[in-house]
């Protein structure tokens, strides 16, 4: 045995006891922090379900908003949100992925690229209302797209693109350089390397980032009010140029009603919105797991 060292199994020294205590305190603090998040989500769910479950039925999902609370439904808002979601995804996904590929695989590492990169990072932090103002000036007035689903989708695209671009860049960067070298070594062109190896490997990560960004967009209200989403609508959009409303706006308009009877409607609307969000997040998790198992 080394001199000065206690034998294995001897009672722990003061130092050993102190560090074990520190470890336990740390583990407890972390668990408590995690619990705060889960508990508040749980409380929200319980409260909302208690208030809204009674109103949640097929008639609620298929009915339009009405002056009469017992006849009111969420159809227009749900359809509007889905329209907006799909359009936003169609616009922002290809543009963002192309931008990320350019920045990661093609752009030279010079000050222009760095400036663009910094800009994207800053844009991701701009308050959403600012995008609303931009959308109003650019799409509603500038391009004369009026108060349409298209205006809303373009505005939300601007909002989510920085986030999608950055997560796509992250996913592309995570593709090991050995894979790229292998493909280049076989005589692949840059495009063949990107198309054949990099994109397939990065795709689950890109999709996860896209879905998370879109699920934030689904909850947005402020920029859509700016571009003219309306709080009360008795039809669903039939084309991209139609007016629209969205779930958060519908919920808000019910909550702000003076009549008590509209409150359960708002709660039921929140349940629908949460269900939509949780579905999207579950989808993201499935994609991420598929990526981990190495597809």
């Amino acid at each position, binding site marked *: 045995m080394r001199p000065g060292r206690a034998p294995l199994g001897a009672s722990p020294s003061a130092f050993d006891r102190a560090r074990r205590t520190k470890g336990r305190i740390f583990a407890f603090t972390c668990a408590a922090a995690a619990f705060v998040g889960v508990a508040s989500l749980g409380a929200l769910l319980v409260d909302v379900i208690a208030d809204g479950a009674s109103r949640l039925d097929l008639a609620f999902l298929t009915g339009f908003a009405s002056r009469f609370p017992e006849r009111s439904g969420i159809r227009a808002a749900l359809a509007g949100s889905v329209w907006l979601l799909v359009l936003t995804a169609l616009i922002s996904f290809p543009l963002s992925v192309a931008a990320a590929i350019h920045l990661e695989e093609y752009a030279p590492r010079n000050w222009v690229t760095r400036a663009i990169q910094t800009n994207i990072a800053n844009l991701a932090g701009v308050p959403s209302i600012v995008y609303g103002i931009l959308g109003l000036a650019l799409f509603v007035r500038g391009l004369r797209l009026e108060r349409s689903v298209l205006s809303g989708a373009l505005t939300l695209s601007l909002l989510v693109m920085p986030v999608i671009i950055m997560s796509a860049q992250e996913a592309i960067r995570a593709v090991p350089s050995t894979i790229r070298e*292998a493909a280049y070594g*076989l*005589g692949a*062109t840059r495009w063949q390397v990107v198309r054949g190896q990099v994109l397939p490997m990065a795709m689950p990560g890109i999709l996860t980032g896209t879905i998370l960004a879109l699920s934030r967009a689904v909850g947005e209200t402020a920029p859509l009010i700016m571009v003219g989403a309306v709080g009360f609508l008795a039809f669903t959009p039939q084309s991209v140029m139609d007016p629209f409303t969205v779930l958060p706006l519908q919920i808000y308009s019910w909550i702000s009603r003076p009549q008590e009877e509209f409150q359960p409607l708002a709660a039921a609307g929140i349940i629908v919105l949460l269900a939509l969000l949780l579905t999207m997040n579950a989808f993201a998790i499935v994609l991420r797991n598929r990526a981990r198992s190495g597809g």
Partner: protein
Amino acid sequence: MTTIYDIEVGEEGPALETRDLSVFYGETMAVDHVSFRVPERSVVALIGPSGCGKSTLLRCFNRMNDLVRGARVEGAVEFHGQDLYAPTIDPVEVRRHIGMVFQKPNPFPKSIYDNVAFGPRINNFRGDEDALVEASLRRAALWDEVRDRLEESAYSLSGGQQQRLCIARTLAVTPEVLLMDEPASALDPIATQRIEELIYELKKDYTIVIVTHNMQQAARISDYTAFLYMGKLIEYGPTDSIFTNPREERTEAYVTGRFG
């Protein structure tokens, strides 16, 4: 400075030749005025202590250094007399003639079959793909082990099998030269021996340049050996004479294990 010791390359000339080749990473010089010739259908081993520039030198032959930001190549590299760095030469084209096997097995996260078929597909191969995949796997001495599991992921193979898969993948683009950067360093002795036997087989049809840290391996498999030290080519010649009768003191010190 030209090479101090040259070798016979025969009538048809060398397959590969460098003249006063220098490579820089930014300001640092990784390869310093290296000139040597690689005869066709021979195995040349590059040896030398870690960081002496073996990989950098090897990667000049298929222009892999083009992919490294800040890398700069000076001097000439020729393939059958054609300057590989001439402005008319497309590096993508170069890599179809001069294939590479890397230090760590790096299969694509795809099936065994698709790994081998990737190269032919991107090169617009029009013949019988199944036959080419089989022939490549046979050449790489892997066919018997994978013939019943071609659709399984390449990641399900052992390290040694993965490396042979990578060799098969390189062979499938039918290159003339194989560059190998320590292809067996991540493998156990048995897998290493299989790779060595394979190199011995391939030598009949391919020109091979191989980097290795293993002196016995260099002595066993190569016809010629180049000893590099701090970016410079110290000695180049038939493997026998490098190992048994080196002319330079530093070479002798290195091959007998007294330094490096």
